[in-house]
């Protein structure tokens, strides 16, 4: 534990978090860009779907299984949604990093606070709130 602490000072972990955030956004943008180009090549000439009335997206765009299934099948739109997933995961992953940082500092109060925030987000992900 002490060796870790020496290797990763408070400031280093902050910088690591900063880098992780940027990497996440860059990765998500690249996936979205690639998916977008494929999407335009495949369907660019088709007419625009009617966005003026809300229908809601189907399972292919709204669930892990649907998105990964589509990506495996080589569908451009699911590939874009994969970029969306990476983007959503970026701040959530940041909380994980903060949790590790506070644990290394043995800051119990902030381990508790960070776990609470993580718990709220995970509840929001898996709590079946979509209705």
């Amino acid at each position: 534990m002490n060796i870790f602490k020496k290797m990763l000072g408070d400031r280093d972990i902050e910088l690591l978090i900063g880098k992780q955030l940027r990497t996440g956004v860059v990765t998500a943008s690249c996936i979205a860009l690639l998916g977008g180009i494929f999407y335009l090549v495949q369907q660019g000439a088709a007419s625009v779907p009617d966005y003026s009335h809300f229908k809601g997206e189907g399972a292919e765009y709204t669930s892990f299984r649907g998105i990964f299934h589509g990506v495996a099948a080589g569908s451009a739109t699911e590939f874009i949604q994969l970029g969306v997933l990476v983007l959503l995961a970026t701040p959530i992953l940041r909380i994980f990093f903060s949790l590790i940082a506070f644990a290394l500092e043995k800051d119990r109060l902030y381990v508790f606070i960070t776990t609470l925030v993580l718990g709220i987000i995970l509840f929001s992900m898996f709590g079946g709130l979509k209705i």
Partner: protein
Amino acid sequence: MNILIFSLILLAGAYVAGLLGSLTGLGGGVILIPLLTLVFHVDIRYAIGVALLASIANSSGAATAYIKEGITNIRLGMFLEIATTAGAVGGALLAIFTPVNTIAILLGVVLIFSAAMTIRKKHEHAEQTGSKLSYLLKLNSSYPTPTGEVSYKLKNVAGGFGIMLIAGVLSGLLGIGSGALKVLAMDSTMRIPFKVSTTTSNFMIGVTAAASAVVYLQRGYIDPGMAFPVVLGVLGGAFTGARLLTFINARTLRIIFCAAITFVALEMIYNGLNHQF
């Protein structure tokens, strides 16, 4: 119109939204929703879905630089995220029961409030006496300035936490970062120096938006055809804006844009009152 042209126009529009959001300090999402609904006639629910994505991208992209400079107060951000994420989840739930026209009117009101907030006088003084809670939660810190490290202490932590809860609900309900309310909580209530409150607020927006975005994604609000031009456009615009800010004086620009945004907000409210959404 075919998909190619629509995507390119959307990309350009999102770029402008990101640029204006960065120059005014309002954030890209807030400008994106009126643009999508009033100009592109997109249903407000789709607009909210992609605006949340834009907020996450913006916040996470910009946070890196601020953390590097050591201005962001990470403990404070973490503590207040309890309030904003809980509020955001609540707001996303509330959105199901809220008529879209009410959402549009609320958004217009928040937009006007945000515009007013960006031109008000800023709190730059660093307080030297903190409240009890600020010591208990280890929230007092210091930040670098051109004249060296300045330490600051926090007042009225509970009050700030309460405003953050409201900021979270609005963020979840309207799909915006609600940076203005976050700054209000930190700046005016907890008396934190302006630079610290803006960067910490920006740091928190990504997590707050993610908390409600996961609900909206599952509810089918996020469309891939709109997501990619919007995310790329807003990020590009924000990047350009940040570059421009270092060598132009944004004060006059800010006032002009804020006036323009107030007109847009009034149109949102007007249309909302006439049940146009």
